[in-house]
């Protein structure tokens, strides 16, 4: 994806066990921060609303 010009950080992967709720919270915070810093997704969004 990054190779084709989608900003790194738009798409995130992680691996969390079902017992790791605190890691879950950390990752949610992290991902939200990254995406916030990137700003809105204007590139890939389809201009007309998809029905």
């Amino acid at each position: 994806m990054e190779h084709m010009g989608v900003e790194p950080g738009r798409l995130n992967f992680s691996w969390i066990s079902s017992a790791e709720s605190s890691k879950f919270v950390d990752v949610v915070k992290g991902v939200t921060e990254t995406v916030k810093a990137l700003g809105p997704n204007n590139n890939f969004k389809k201009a007309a609303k998809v029905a």
Partner: protein
Amino acid sequence: MTEFEPKIVSFLCNWCSYGAADLAGVGRMEYPPNIRVIRIPCTGRMSPKFFLAALRQGADGVWVSG
């Protein structure tokens, strides 16, 4: 204008991260409200189609977690 609040579509595995999310809820932990959770039966169900569809329809970010 208020601060930008992204919409993050999250694909969570039923057995891993979805469980973790549940546990976080049970433990009353606080986390940002920007994620929109989609439960998938297993991360193996994930397909490139899904995150492309999410981004096309206006998601600001995608998070896949197993």
